[in-house]
């Protein structure tokens, strides 16, 4: 009879979570970064990040270098925002040594740092477009403008990427005569590029569908996890070191700090696009105010000996708060040179942000943090 039939239930079937290794060699991880995802079907249950593939001794090696040789290390720490990192370091040395760089040098530094911020955010937008699935279109637009900026830097310093141009006390040499005109040309071209990227990515329904509502972050969580930079501002907190602790001459410029509301990755993208506009504003004001004069402080000695002491100097790099903690024992080489990389702190929050999402979304979240592995691993 039907009621006598016992239904056999399978009791020894189980589903296991599989481990996927998003390995160090991977087109999507923005560098040699390894993630071990524990995946249940499509949903990620756990993330185990592994870093250290890019560690080069960026903090130890400068202990053998004098203060000018260390500048090159900072170029290579965050290779997308070199002028910002150099700026942080030379400001730290200047403060510790009691130097004051000249007005013209300060203006030049600010102009170059903001241009570099634009270049870095352009790179982010291009890479983010590639993560989203655009086959290089956003990437090419972004790199077109980066190329314009890099050519401008090449005319000024000679290098396209590792400039080694700032010095404690000023800058290494003066800018060419057509600096202002050239810079305005660069800004015009960059505006066109930002407009292209805008119309390609901002309103597109596919981008909205992928990015809206993904990994929303509350401000309290963001502060607890140590996030800084556009990620923190996307959650709603109006915190920008250029306003909170103005360094160099940032207090002379008039610019807005864009903030978001939910902190999801769409807002992070919008933060960076808006920041590019604000950087253009700052550069225009600085170009108008650029004074004549010397570019290196008076009375600089050949060998810079910094009096003993310690200092922590922070700047707003495109990724967040980049800091240099410098301890000096009076000689011409730093005693301890510690770098606080923004990407390291931002990346450590990846697990909280990304667990519970789909695999493809984890890639997007990683892209939206905008890491530079050299800052993470130093």
């Amino acid at each position, binding site marked *: 009879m039907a009621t006598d039939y016992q239904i056999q239930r399978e009791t020894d079937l189980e589903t296991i979570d*599989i481990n*996927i290794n*998003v390995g160090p060699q*991977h*087109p*999507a991880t923005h560098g040699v970064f390894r993630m071990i995802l524990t995946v249940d079907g*499509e949903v990620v249950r756990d993330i185990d990040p592994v870093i250290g593939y890019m560690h080069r001794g960026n903090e130890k090696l400068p202990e053998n270098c004098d203060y000018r040789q260390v500048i090159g290390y900072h170029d290579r720490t965050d290779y997308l925002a070199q002028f910002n990192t150099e700026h942080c370091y030379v400001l730290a040395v200047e403060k510790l040594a009691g130097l004051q760089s000249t007005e013209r040098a300060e203006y030049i530094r600010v102009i170059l740092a903001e241009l570099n911020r634009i270049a870095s955010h352009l790179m982010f937008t291009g890479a983010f*477009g*590639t*993560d*989203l*699935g*655009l*086959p*290089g*279109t956003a*990437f*090419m*637009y972004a790199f*077109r403008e980066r190329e314009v900026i890099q050519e401008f830097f090449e005319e000024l310093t000679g290098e396209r990427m590792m400039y080694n141009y700032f010095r404690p006390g000023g800058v290494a040499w003066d800018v060419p005569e057509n600096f202002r005109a050239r810079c305005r040309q660069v800004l015009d071209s960059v*505006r066109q590029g*930002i*407009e292209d990227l*805008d*119309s*390609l*990515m*901002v*309103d*597109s*329904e*596919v*981008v*909205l*569908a*992928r990015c*809206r*509502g993904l990994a929303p972050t509350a401000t309290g969580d963001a502060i607890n996890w140590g996030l800084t930079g556009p990620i923190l501002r996307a959650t709603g907190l109006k915190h920008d070191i250029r306003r909170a602790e103005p360094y160099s001459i940032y207090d002379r410029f*008039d610019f*807005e*700090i*864009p*903030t*978001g*509301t*939910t902190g*999801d990755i*769409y*807002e992070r993208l*919008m933060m960076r*696009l*808006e920041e590019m*506009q604000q950087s*253009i*504003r700052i550069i225009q004001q600085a170009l108008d105010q650029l004074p004549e004069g010397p570019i290196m402080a008076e009375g600089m000695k050949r060998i810079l000996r910094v009096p003993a002491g310690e200092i922590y100097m922070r700047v707003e790099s495109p990724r967040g708060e980049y800091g240099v903690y410098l301890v000096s024992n009076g000689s011409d080489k730093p005693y301890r040179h510690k770098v606080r990389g923004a990407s390291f702190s931002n990346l450590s929050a990846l697990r909280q942000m990304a667990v519970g999402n*789909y*695999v*493809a*979304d984890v*890639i997007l979240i990683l892209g939206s943090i905008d890491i530079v592995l050299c800052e993470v691993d130093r």
Partner: protein
Amino acid sequence: MIADNPWLDAVARMGIVAVVVPVTVIILTWLERKVIGRMQMRLGPMHVGPYGILQGLADTIKLLSKEGVRPHSADRWTFELAPFVIVVPVLMSLVALPFTADIFVRNMTMGLFYILAVSGLSIVGFVMAGWGSDNKYALIGGVRAGAQLISYEIPLILAVVAVAMVAQSLNLNVIVALQHDTPFIAYQPLTFLIFTIAGLAELYRQPFDIPVAESEVVGGPFVEYSGIRWSMFQLGEFVSMVLISVLASLIFLGGWNWPWSWLSNGDVPTAAQIVLMAVKTGAFIMFFMWMRGSMPRLRIDQLMSFCWQMLLPLALLQIILNGLVLVYDWPNIILTVLSGAAAVAAVYLIYRLARASGVRYQPSALGGQRVGSVL
């Protein structure tokens, strides 16, 4: 007729198709790289031959001469047969596809049915490739690929069924002959939309290419393949693209007849037929490449919900509309109006659904210059 003996005739025709289509595919690979390059403000291939025309040939030679690596723990026959299972059905479905009124292999009475049925067999190949590679990425990619293909077959087939209802025939020559006055796109814009979108998904092109761009660019079910097998996958993809483009121009845009037959009211000469077909197919292929260059990809669950919750009801709606018009013998213009209204409603729905997922970013009040359309 090439020969009197039907067997010889069939073999000769198939031989011609089997040679011409891969050559077209080789040219299409070059064209795609050029078109996408132009959209990215760069040149594309330029070195191999004038303007890089021989690039496709160079790629083919390179791929054919590469070592075919097979993972040791891969399931041998599944791994090795998967490319064949993908390519052979697509080539088989070319048998029933008329390129012009005289250039075809066989004129089948149920041509549409045959094409769709046979090309659907490729799904098995993708899953075989995913499973046989013994690689977690491939497995996930293969399973996603299978899911996507199976899902999007249904709106595709329903769209074709809608056209067959209007044409009262599955014979492609008859369908084209019936479009000598107006192409079917004028009667059924919604079906055209559904067919195009489902076709994009069948071909794994942006925005529906997540299975083959698994974890962004690693390759999905094809990650362990190299050399000849890889080139077979690419061949299969491009031949499918040609197939879908030709099919769309035949059943929606009037094939080789319209607008010549509409303007001249007579038979269309063969040369004009070839030109018309080439233009229409080319327009579709350009459209596919254009989409590839400008759209990011949807996530697999968004893709699936788009298919089942959006395309399928719309396809069924279109079939109901067709049925009403045919049963009550309303004039065709009613069909145009109803279908057009449904198409507009569908587009609007998609727009609202995409926007509804959150509040748009409002920038803080900014002085100074605002450029671009950053909101």
